[in-house]
């Protein structure tokens, strides 16, 4: 609108400093150390059970921590790819200036997938109750799920789904980087159209496969329990965490003098997304909790009973405070979404809150012992309290968090910091919502 001369599209490159490398590797080293210390010092005792009967609790906790941390960073990376695909399908213009950030985040997907496959592959009989030999046949509730919940089909599904998403994300990245090199100008929509078609296919398949992915990886840990809203609740967790990560990385790059065309307007819009989807997450969380609490059916309530006693009670309420109360009240004001300090505080709270959310989805179920170890009733379950977040959970958080940051920052160096020849780049550079 008459002030197109105010911005300059230039080819910016991100330089990965030695300090950043040292910090991320230091984080990884600290994480690995914590994991080892945590594993060696965890000697649980449970009244009524012998030492032999609880001997694989440390392994359960190790694999459970690995699984939920890997899952957390994997869904962040996947939802970053989903963010690009959705914006592409909506013909959005505003996000183009920050597009390289979700692109870089999606490079972590393959590492996350490997982590999940290792944790699941090693943990199938250890943290997945249904994968014990004989459990499916003896348990009447589980017997009907045998056609779906069996080891080969489970692993094939995981590999196929994650493989497809990784392929789609890598093609989106490839088109975007090719566009910088090969596009004939701002009117050339060759790569735009290709990405559009790919995004449509990706979104359609993702919607179905993510459902099954969430059932498999997290819901089947509590194999007796089911919730029809669980998928969208998982997606909300990943989506809002991905938006928060994009928001924080954008602030990080801007405060280091990069991204000359990104303004407070873009930051504000990302902030609105974070606010809105925090409320969306709460909606899903309440919808799941309220119905189960109200209906009070034993097989459903068991899930929340585990999570409302012992050390998990704190995590349960921490979840609501960090993921709803904090973003809702601190991030409602317009100025808060445009402030770096406030953005960093709320962003950190949201990420910590959703890490805690995934912890609460996986760990109580993963720590549960099947009663077959006591030799009595083969289908019962003994709840085990892991006494709060310990070294292993935090260790894997630092280990995978450091890896995630390193991969993302490294991926940012591979291309210009924003696509210089995307058809909508000028629209994004002049983005102004007028509020």
């Amino acid at each position, binding site marked *: 609108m008459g002030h197109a001369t105010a911005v300059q599209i230039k080819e910016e490159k991100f330089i990965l400093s030695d300090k950043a490398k040292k910090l991320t590797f230091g984080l990884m080293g600290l994480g690995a150390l914590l994991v080892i210390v945590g594993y060696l010092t965890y000697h649980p005792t449970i009244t009524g059970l012998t030492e032999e009967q609880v001997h694989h609790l440390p392994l359960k906790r190790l694999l459970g921590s690995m699984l939920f941390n890997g899952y957390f960073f994997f869904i962040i990376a996947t939802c970053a790819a989903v963010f690009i695909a959705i914006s592409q399908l909506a013909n959005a213009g505003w996000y183009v200036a920050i597009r390289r950030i979700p692109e870089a985040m999606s490079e972590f997907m393959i590492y996350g997938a490997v982590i999940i496959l290792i944790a699941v592959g090693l943990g199938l009989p250890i943290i997945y109750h249904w994968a014990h030999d004989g459990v499916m046949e003896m348990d009447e509730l589980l017997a009907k799920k045998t056609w779906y919940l069996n080891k080969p089909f489970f692993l094939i599904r995981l590999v196929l789904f994650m493989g497809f998403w990784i392929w789609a994300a890598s093609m989106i990245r490839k088109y975007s980087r090719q566009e910088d090199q090969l596009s004939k100008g701002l009117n050339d929509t060759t790569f735009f159209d290709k990405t559009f078609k790919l995004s449509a296919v990706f979104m359609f398949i993702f919607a179905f496969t993510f459902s099954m992915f969430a059932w498999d990886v997290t819901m089947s840990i509590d194999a007796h329990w089911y919730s029809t809203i669980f998928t969208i609740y998982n997606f909300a967790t990943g989506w809002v965490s991905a938006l928060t990560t994009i928001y924080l990385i954008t602030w990080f790059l801007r405060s280091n003098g990069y991204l000359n065309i990104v303004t407070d307007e873009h930051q504000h819009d990302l902030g609105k997304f974070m606010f809105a989807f925090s409320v969306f997450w709460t909606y899903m969380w309440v919808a799941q909790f*309220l119905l189960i609490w*109200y209906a*009070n059916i034993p097989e459903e309530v068991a899930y929340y009973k585990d999570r409302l006693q012992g050390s998990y009670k704190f995590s349960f309420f921490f979840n609501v405070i960090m993921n709803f109360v904090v973003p809702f009240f601190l991030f409602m004001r317009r100025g808060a979404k445009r402030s770096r300090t406030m953005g960093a505080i709320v962003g950190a709270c949201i990420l910590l809150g959703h890490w805690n959310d995934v912890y609460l989805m996986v760990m109580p179920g993963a720590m549960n012992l099947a009663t077959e170890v006591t030799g009595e009733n083969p289908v019962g379950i003994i709840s085990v309290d892991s006494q709060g977040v310990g070294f292993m959970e935090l260790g894997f958080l630092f280990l995978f968090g450091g890896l995630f940051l390193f991969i993302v920052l490294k991926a940012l160096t591979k291309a210009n910091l924003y696509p210089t020849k995307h058809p909508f780049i000028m629209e994004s550079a002049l983005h*102004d919502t007028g509020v």
Partner: protein
Amino acid sequence: MMNMPQQRKEMKYMDNSKMLLGIYDNPDLTLDATKNLIAQGYDVHDVYTPFAVHNLDRVLGVKRTRLSIAAFLFAMTGLTSAILLQTYASYFDWPMNVGGKPNLHIPTYIPITFELSILFTAFGMVGCFFIVNRMFWGRNTDIMDLRVTDDRFVIAVNIHEGQTDVSELSSLFVKGGALEVREREKDI
């Protein structure tokens, strides 16, 4: 964005009973003409457009709306009313045993509290909007030019006797791309 006065000084004169209207058909031209007129020191009364033109509010120095603060207060009123209503009804006035749930059944408060917060906010904001814009039943709205409700953009400039050169102003309008320039009485 560039060289814009953040807050235009309120100009108050006794004799501003007439206005000159410049009628445009292009939002960009309107925006540029408004910038130009303000830079030249004319007392731009207001600009009327069929849709929101980005940056126009900043050029005119319109203050940011306080409607959002009002909305928050309405929401909190709704939230408090909903919690008081439910606690009174189900705990103090008529406790009932529903499925063995406690009488102070906080989780089921959520939907009703949510709905009442939204309801209070919506009604409160609409009410505020009407009051702030002085829109009541039976009040005739004075529209600068009927075509601003369709596809025309109107810049209204106050004429101050002895200070505003009307012929120079109208030539400025035409130079800026106005399709039509006319004078009208000010009655709002």
